[in-house]
């Protein structure tokens, strides 16, 4: 198997081509679109799970057994603010991504 892979990689050769062609295949995560991010005041949070249910991208998990009970995956959170609007105990707010303004 190792030999096969080595053989394959040795046979690859760099060729000069003209015109548009992509040589690196990459996608950026949707979190890069975010202008503001939601943050949680854990003192006020009642662990109800409303934010988790309303999140349109399903990136919020609520762990009732943890002190920092609300976990947001910022790689994919687009910063829409729906969680902040829906929070019944008003323990969430949006803060700017690029520092305080």
């Amino acid at each position, binding site marked *: 198997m190792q030999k096969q892979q080595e053989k394959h990689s040795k046979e690859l050769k760099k060729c000069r*081509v*003209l*015109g*548009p*062609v*992509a*040589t690196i*295949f990459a996608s950026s995560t949707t979190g890069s679109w975010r202008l503001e991010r939601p943050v949680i005041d854990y003192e006020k949070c009642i662990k109800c799970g409303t934010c988790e249910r309303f999140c349109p991208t399903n990136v919020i998990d609520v762990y009732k057994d943890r002190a920092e009970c609300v976990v947001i995956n910022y790689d994919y959170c687009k910063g829409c603010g729906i969680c902040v609007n829906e929070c019944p105990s008003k323990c969430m707010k949006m803060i700017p991504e690029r520092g305080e303004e």
Partner: protein
Amino acid sequence: MVFKMLDGNEAAVEAMKLARVQVISAYPITPQSSISEKLSDLVAAGELKAEYVRVESEHTALSVATTAGLTGVRAATATASNGLALMHEILSMTSGNRVPIVMPVVNRGVAAPWTLWCEHGDAMAQRDMGWLQFYCQNVQEVLDLTLLAYRVAEDERVLTPAMVCLDGFFLSHSMQKTQVPEQRLVDDFIGPYIRKNTYIDPDDPMFCCDLTGSDEFTEMRYQQKYAMDNSIDVIEEIENEFEIRFGRKLHIVEGYKTEDADVVLVALGSMCGTAKYVVDKMRQEGKKVGLAKVTVFRPFPVKQLKEVLKGKKVIGVFDRSAGLGGQGGPVWSETSALMMNENCDIRNYVGGLGGRDVTIDNIEKIYNELLEIKEGKRTVHTEWIDLKENPMELRQVTKNV
């Protein structure tokens, strides 16, 4: 080698068949239709082993041909007039992706006014889309320049698509005696299609034509400019090879009796045949006139045309397209830029639009005007040489009936 009676469209088909095109996606349009039809007949009869894709428009015809070309086959299409206009967007895809398609363009005016007939306005409108452009004088040149175009376009130093422009009806539908080379000779000259640049292949994937940012776009355009600049020498080299193999001399610019000429007319396409006749006729009357026939318009043959026009004091340029809003037609503009440091008088003539014959009389009239300008007997010239006397009074309609 055999002689056949062919019209221009049949000669184009003959050349595409000899080049063994593998994928054809053509949409019929007058006066190109018989190219589409004849190719489909050949495929149906099994005389040409190719995939014939029936498409719903010229936009798709060139899209299919371009992407088929990217898979690594010799792909073909052909069009005219409004069909070429509809291809506009894809023309740049073909050239930008460096797919060397050879496409006969049967010159016809672009509507409106609706016309079916010849002028160069359709091809001239696409002159900056990164395609080579060859203009044919007669049916033999349609065959020869198409064969030549395959070699030039597919050359590694060029990799640029080519239009072979033939005048609608004057060439496309007029029968002439044409020398057709044997398949074996053409196989030796053109050879099988080899993919030399990027390609679409599931076994070796790459992503062609991705979004290109401002950090690289200029360089990719420059690659095309570089190819255009190279191609003129490649054309010269392959024309020499063509002459050795097939015995016919092709020219980038042909100077016809220009060496001792007092005045020279620059022209393209089928009207050059008439112009040569007029040159012979006027020389019998002792008037020293000459013709510069431009076969390659893209890239513009700077060196070759300059050589032919060297030392000429009065030059006329005949544009078979209106060049609306410009100072003159496109051939005149290029010629003027070419000669800007020379001490000469370059006059722009427009005529032969929408199928109007470029007659012996009109070319003679141009030459006589140029001679009078040279002798100081005349200052103004007749820009629209074949315009009727009453252009603004052509129609009257009854309104509010």
